């Protein structure tokens, strides 16, 4: 056999993320000059649609603004630009579209706080009636509009298997109204409604819910969690979701510098730590069954994640470490065990 050309033999289009391993500088970065163009991420392209463009009023280092551009640019590419977005009330709506300005560069509708899934179902139905099969629909909202206020409409959309991709940008609270607790707020976190008062300050253990698990229980075609810390994984999931018709749900961990009390440059670092601690499990499920998980690369203790955020600062006040830190570590360990996030040593 002739000697393989190393420039092409190690990576072939379609071999996916793993094959990029060969490129020591391209595996985890957004792009790389050494990778062939069809293997590069959507975000590395000069031609990305920038569905969410400059001039929006999100805070410095906003994880949600970043996650939304990542997700919608990928969906735009997958749909060939034929995409309509329905947006629940929340940060994303407020900071992108203070009338009369809009930062969106695609057809975009603002629904009520709780009915984005139902409105998106209606848009999809309208397109079907008009014979516009090529037009795809996404609904998007924050965790408040999804896990609390919009859950009933969302469950209906799932149960009817409507042809909508619902994307939840999870920043673990109601941030634009002043950081109140949602059912996605983690235990012990300080919010305006779970203040640092009493014996066990912050959010209460044993409350909250996992909407990804609820979505999986609906046995819809596709459910995934993703993170702004892993762009390639996020893009692959949105692309996959767009290749499927029916109800799909993706929840993206988007750190909020304001609500979490973190430095604006730490956004991606925090999202990465959420994955590497096991705090935020990243997985995919199809038709009610978990099909893949994103393994932890370098495991770190949960304290490294917590200490960067003022919402957990009360756990580390004084000389003693709050015993609830151990409970949060146990939560991570339980996630690691449940999803098999660590490779056997």
């Amino acid at each position, binding site marked *: 056999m002739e000697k393989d050309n190393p420039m092409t033999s190690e990576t072939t289009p379609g071999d996916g993320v793993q094959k990029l391993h060969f*490129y*020591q500088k391209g595996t985890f970065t957004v792009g*790389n000059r050494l990778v062939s163009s069809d293997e590069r*991420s959507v975000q590395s392209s000069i031609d990305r649609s920038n569905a969410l463009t*400059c001039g929006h009023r999100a805070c410095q280092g906003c994880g949600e603004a970043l996650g939304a551009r990542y997700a919608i640019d990928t969906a735009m590419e997958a749909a060939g630009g034929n995409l309509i977005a329905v947006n629940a009330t929340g940060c994303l709506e407020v900071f992108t579209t203070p009338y009369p300005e*809009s930062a969106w560069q695609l057809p975009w509708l603002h629904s009520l706080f709780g009915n984005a899934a139902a409105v998106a179902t209606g848009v999809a139905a309208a397109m079907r009636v008009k014979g516009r099969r090529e037009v795809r629909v996404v609904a998007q909202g924050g965790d408040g509009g999804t896990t609390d206020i919009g859950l009933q409409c969302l469950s209906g959309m799932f149960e009817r298997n409507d042809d909508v991709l619902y994307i939840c940008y999870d920043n673990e609270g109601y941030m634009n109204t002043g950081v109140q607790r949602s059912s996605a707020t983690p235990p012990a976190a300080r919010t305006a409604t779970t203040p640092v008062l009493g014996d066990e300050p912050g959010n209460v253990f044993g409350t909250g819910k996992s909407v990804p698990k609820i979505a999986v229980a609906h046995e819809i075609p596709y459910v995934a969690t993703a993170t702004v810390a892993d762009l390639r994984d996020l893009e692959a999931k949105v692309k996959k979701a767009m290749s499927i018709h029916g109800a799909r749900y993706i929840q993206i961990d988007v750190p909020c510098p304001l609500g979490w009390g973190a430095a604006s440059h730490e956004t991606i670092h925090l999202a990465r730590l959420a994955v590497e601690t096991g705090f935020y499990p990243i997985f995919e499920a199809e038709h009610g069954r978990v099909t893949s998980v994103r393994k932890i690369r370098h495991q770190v203790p949960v304290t490294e994640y917590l200490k960067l955020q003022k919402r957990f600062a009360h756990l580390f006040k004084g000389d003693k470490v709050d015993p609830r830190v151990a409970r949060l570590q146990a939560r991570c360990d339980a996630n690691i065990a449940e999803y098999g996030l660590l490779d056997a040593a």
Partner: protein
Amino acid sequence: MEHPYAITLDVGTSLANHTGSWRTKRPVYVDRLPPCNAACPAGENIQAWLFRAESGDYEAAWRKLTENNPLPAIMGRVCYHPCQGACNRGEVDEAVGINSVERFLGDEALKQGWGFDKPETESGKRVLIVGAGPSGLSAAYHLRRLGHQVTIKEAGPLPGGMMRFGIPKYRLPREIIDGEVKRITDMGVAIEYGVKVDDIAETMREGRFDAAFLAVGAHIAKRAYIPAGAAARVLDAVSVLHSMEDGEKPMLGRRVVVYGGGNTALDVARTAKRLGAEEAVIVYRRTRDKMPAHDFELEEALQEGVLVKWLSTIRNVEEGEITVERMELDASGFPQPTGEIETLATDSVVLALGQDVDLSLLDNVPGLEIDKGVVKVGPNMMTGAPGIFAGGDMVPSERTVTVAVGHGKKAARHIDAWLRGETYEPAEKHELASFDKLNTWYYDDAPRTIQPVLADVRRTSTFEEVVGGLDETNALYEARRCLSCGNCFECDNCYGVCPDNSVIKLGPGNRFKFNYDYCKGCGVCAAECPCGAIQMVPEAI
């Protein structure tokens, strides 16, 4: 335009909202100094040539490399690679095998016949170089590139200096020296062999040279007084290694003792093994951690069966045996005699105790200063005599090939400026790209491609090269392990991670720029830049 009820404004894009006004810190693209470059005595721009090698453009990589060092195939074999000791990758897994990639590029250049361009214009100035060792050759190359006429006068019969007469063949094959020297002579550098310069001032006058660079090296073996019987066979390392090149192989016998603890001692012991000695014993007065030789070379020697007698001095040499005294280190680490004596059977003793410079050619030069046997030079490599510069082993320095090559380059730049009546001002160095400036999450874990090592048996019986080279696939792999510390490698991270879409991608080779109209100064780009090429600078408010 008619507005609906209660509406007074036209709809429009958010681009009207210049969020750049929120910023208190601005990101700025910077080039920081990679630690490998900072550590290289020859001043190579290592990161830059690895960058070119990574894309498989080996000729461009070689040309970038040879901007600073004309001898990569030699350097890839004999350099002690301080770059790898400084490499930030060492803190992630293992240092990049820079030296092996350099050797690959050097060998590739010889194989493909890549040559240097001749200078476009001639300056009309004539420079004399004394000595065709590494610093002389390096100076000749750089001066020629700057358009000067260069003549090297070499006392020996062949080029290379200590690279040929001090470094054994199994570490540096001679055709490699010849190949790399030929490229320099092809540029128009003249080398006259067998010409010993006895009087530098006279030689310069005669040849109408405008400046001279002295690089005669240090070829005189240091002696130590050791009582020896009349029939005892005592040799010195310099002449043993030198005679390996003259055809007349030195007669060392079956049992050889080498006295000294430097790299030269190891070279002699390993050479003795290859000449058929059953026993090669190094006698060194201190301990392994105090040994000036490089540990990896000691390790290779030990693997080949070289023995070392630590903490020992030679008291007396007789025919067939030597008397050795055991030493002890005192509190300050100096060896002190103990009075314990033993004898070792041996056929010859080789002294490897260091070398001195032959300074006779400088006798008639006014202003020139000698200190502790070496020539004093200023920061510009010029001796006390105007127009006479010096470098390599004959000036105070670490005596390695790489340092010598660096001296040659530095001297050439100063000579060039001096010939024009100017002073050479080196560009200011960038801030060091230290490990804390990197975000190593983005680099994959990968072990170093180990240079294949020939089997011990094969190694000791021949003068073949001990350390093998990389082939193309693993050279490419090794090059791609470079972290590109401090210098943008266009990974698109900043372009991707900006929540405000405020990084403008300028396309391949052109890097990026910030759109300060919208950049809010969050600092995510700087935090997520793998190689530390973005700096956050406070805004003047």
